[in-house]
């Protein structure tokens, strides 16, 4: 009787409520205010990174000086004089294609949830129209499909032309981005200017606009964080999984290797490696962070695998003849990945900090807009506007990722879960 009763109760509480583990975690995440704020801030940073050219560039979105309307900003996105780095090319592609994936996303969601179907289809159709209009309006400048590797020979200085025309009393019809400076434009005459109306955050030693460099710096920081962490999570997960699942000799070899790696003071290792490489690019920095920081993840994953390989569901999977590789990566890994997510989130913040430190020490990639580099200039020049802006930017991004990491950790911890 009692046994039967408890079973019924169990059925009532757990019943038919359709919530997967992910949904439970998301619900927990939403309960913490700081985490929600953090997540919104990350979303904002991503938008800032993708849409940076619409916020800050010397090329107008629309330009009409009496000889027809053109949209110079869009071809400029793939002009190697303005955007040399692959990070920028990648984000600019994201920017150009954003209507497309918004459309696809909405269509997919519309197909899944019938009741949102109508509205999503309208929005999706609008996005597609947007994309079509965009490619139709600017064919002249956009030309054939832009080749990101193509190096354009010249850039029209639209901002200067606009200023000249305005001075001559014939203002062109033009829509510029909010801030009319790109991050690579140098101007020796305006070097180390304090904040002014034209340069709200001032300029650096080469006369580059600090605000523009801050905005484009989000691209560098996010990419550094995500790619470096992706590299070391991949290495750490594979090595940790092998060590934890197979145990024995494999475990001993991998564990000893991890211990050897841990013995190196990692920042100095990174510093040495970065200093040794000639012609450093930002990707070298990512790779260096990636190959030196995987030990924590590997140990975490190993511990999780040691636990999960003994659990009944793993034994059941083995007894049902599921191939070993599938058991490791399809069965155990999804169960073991939660703590890795937490470390990865903290890791993004740490990687951003490492990149800033390297740039601050002058061994970063000079072709990208790095916050650390501006900070270094500020230190050398002793000018506060060159220190405060990048300092706050680094502080903000690192804090935001740490807040989200902490929220994620709490959400994944069943002991802290309030039912």
């Amino acid at each position, binding site marked *: 009787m009692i*046994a039967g009763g408890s079973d019924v109760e169990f059925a009532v509480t*757990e019943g038919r409520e*359709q919530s997967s583990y992910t949904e439970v975690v998301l619900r927990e995440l939403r309960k913490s205010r700081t985490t929600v704020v953090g997540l919104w801030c990350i979303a904002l940073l991503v938008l800032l990174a993708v849409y940076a050219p619409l916020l800050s560039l010397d090329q107008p979105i629309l330009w009409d000086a009496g000889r027809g309307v053109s949209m110079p900003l869009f071809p400029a996105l793939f002009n190697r004089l303005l955007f040399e780095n692959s990070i920028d090319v990648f984000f600019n592609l994201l920017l150009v294609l954003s209507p497309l994936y918004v459309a696809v996303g909405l269509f997919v969601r519309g197909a899944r949830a019938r009741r949102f179907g109508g509205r999503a289809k309208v929005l999706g159709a609008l996005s597609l129209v947007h994309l079509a209009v965009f490619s139709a309006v600017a064919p002249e400048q956009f030309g054939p499909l832009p080749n990101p590797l193509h190096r354009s020979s010249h850039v029209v200085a639209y901002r200067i032309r606009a200023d000249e025309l305005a001075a001559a009393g014939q203002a062109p019809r033009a829509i510029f981005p909010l801030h009319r400076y790109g991050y690579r434009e140098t101007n020796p005459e305006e070097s180390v200017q304090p904040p002014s109306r034209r340069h709200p955050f001032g300029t650096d030693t080469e006369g580059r606009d600090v605000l523009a460099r801050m905005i484009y710096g989000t691209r560098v920081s996010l990419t550094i964080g995500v790619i470096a962490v992706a590299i070391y999570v991949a290495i750490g997960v594979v090595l940790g999984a092998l060590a934890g699942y197979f145990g024995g000799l494999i475990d001993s070899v991998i564990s000893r290797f991890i211990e050897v790696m841990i013995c190196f003071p990692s920042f100095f290792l990174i510093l040495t490696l970065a200093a040794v490489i000639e012609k450093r690019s930002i990707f070298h920095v990512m790779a260096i962070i990636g190959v030196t920081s995987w030990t924590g993840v590997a140990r975490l994953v190993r511990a999780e695998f040691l636990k999960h390989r003994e659990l009944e569901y793993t*034994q*059941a999977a083995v007894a049902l*003849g599921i191939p070993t590789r599938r058991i490791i990566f399809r069965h155990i890994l*999804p*169960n073991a990945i939660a703590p890795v997510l937490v470390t990865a989130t903290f890791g993004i913040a740490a990687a951003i900090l490492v990149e800033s430190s390297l740039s601050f020490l002058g061994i970063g990639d000079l072709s990208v807009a790095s916050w650390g580099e501006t900070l270094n200039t500020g230190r050398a020049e002793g000018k506060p506007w060159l220190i405060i802006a990048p300092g706050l930017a680094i502080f903000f991004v690192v804090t935001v990722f740490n807040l989200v990491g902490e929220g994620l950790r709490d959400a994944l911890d069943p002991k802290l879960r309030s039912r």
Partner: protein
Amino acid sequence: MDRPLLSVEDLVVHFPTDGGVVEAVSGVSCDVRRGETVAVVGESGCGKSVTALSLLGLVPPPGRVVHGAIRLGDESLLDATPERLREIRGDEVAMIFQEPMTSLNPVFKVGDQIEEVLETHRSTSGEAARAEVIRLLSMVGIADPVGRIDEYPHQLSGGMRQRVMIAMALACGPKLLVADEPTTALDVTVQAQVLELLRRLQRTLGTAVLLITHDLGVVAEMAHRVVVMYAGRVAERGTAEAIFARPRHPYTAGLFRSLPRLGSDEPLRPIEGSVPDAQRFPPGCRFHPRCPYALPVCRERVPELSPRTPKTADDGDESEPHVSACFYVDEHPDVDLFAFEKPGAP
């Protein structure tokens, strides 16, 4: 008589530990024929689970089979390559475990877990696999299989999870199902349902079942034949009828005596003492320190399994002699082991 589906001969499993080698299974033999249920009974730590695991090459390291033969049909499982063993698992021989609460992977929908087995062994996927999963779920008696297929294990009760496990195990129509204490963790009512399900499926699908249990009630309900194990050895083996009617080993009798009987005021008489430490098994018959019938010879020599004469016509059949390993029964073939007082002190 045709060959048994599964035959285990003289199986010895060792676990090397820091304190010396532990012999978890010492010379166990048993057969399972097509479509029948064989129960392996014994206390915790008697080696019954290790025996079951060794069939599929699943003995947890550092344990290993050091002697014996396991044959599935004509194939020797101990000589099979790891890849061949993997093919056999889940396809020809499937296994279900004690803990339905944790035997399903918490991050996958139950339907996907069953589908994966089909995909692994039958390369069925997509719509065909989904239809098959729904058929399997309704076969194991899950109401609303279409609705349940997309649920996660935590949304199901223990009994339902065990049903899903059974559906997974039977997905590829195995010839043999090894059930390691399938009902131990379930409520009594659910237990009865699951046993009924297993019995029904066995009748309709003709799957042979090797049932590992310590519950004589389960044995009585399910088994055609019984193997009683004690401390890594077979104590007694025979048809369920023969063993229930007339146990021929003091240990078997002791197990029966420690069960409550309906309508009896007799106090329960548990077997005195406890299971010996596997690192220090007593010499001779391993049961002798706890045996009320122990003879001096029991301390020195290991008794052989010897055939016992059936008392009545339906007590034991030709192909399956009732055997037990006991010197006392060798000397007193007609002793009534149910009587606690031994007749005539040794």
